[in-house]
């Protein structure tokens, strides 16, 4: 039964959130509270914090994110293929070969263009 399966998942989410929040509640009751302004300061190894946390970051984070999204999408085609290609024989294998070769060209292109280099 499909919906029963997912009922379990839903209940796990709810119960998990409650049980994870429970210790936070206990802390709220037990813990001392002494509001000192120094306590709520941003931690910067003991130095008085300066400037914004939002520094400019490297564009490479985006490039890796992009390549990840593209290949993650490729993976969604691999999952259904993986469980049925046995029944469909040679044809299915060749189809996936074409699919993967096209994507490997993409990986090779990114590699060649230096999108996979961090330095």
């Amino acid at each position: 039964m499909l919906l029963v399966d997912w009922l379990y998942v839903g209940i796990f989410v709810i119960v998990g959130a409650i049980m994870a929040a429970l210790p936070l509640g206990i802390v709220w009751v037990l813990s001392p509270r002494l509001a000192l302004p120094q306590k709520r300061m941003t931690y910067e190894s003991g130095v008085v914090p300066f400037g914004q946390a939002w520094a400019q970051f490297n564009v490479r984070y985006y490039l890796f994110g992009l390549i990840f999204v593209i290949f993650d999408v490729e993976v969604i085609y691999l999952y259904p293929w993986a469980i049925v290609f046995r029944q469909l024989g040679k044809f299915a294998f060749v189809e996936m070969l074409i699919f993967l070769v096209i994507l490997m060209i993409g990986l090779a292109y990114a590699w060649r263009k230096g999108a996979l280099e961090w330095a």
Partner: protein
Amino acid sequence: MPVGLTHYLVVSVLLFCLGLYAMLTRRNAVAILMGIELMLNAANINLVAFNKFVAPAALSGQVFALVVITLAACEAGVGLALVMAAYRNLETIHVDEINVMKW
């Protein structure tokens, strides 16, 4: 009243119009892209709902939902690349300030 096709369609219309609203009124290009993602999600709800209630045996609705997810990922990738390029060259990502092509 059991949950039927119309219920899902109404939810998807509301989601679509929220996305449209974000697209029409936001200044931040990334927020516009978020609106587009909402609209694509609404379209996907439609596809899957029609698949279940109108033609369950064919599964083409779900297959096309997967294709739409693929296109959404590509759109996000290229769209955000454009945002990055605009930010690099014009130092803004607010679409009403990007007007170098305006006559």
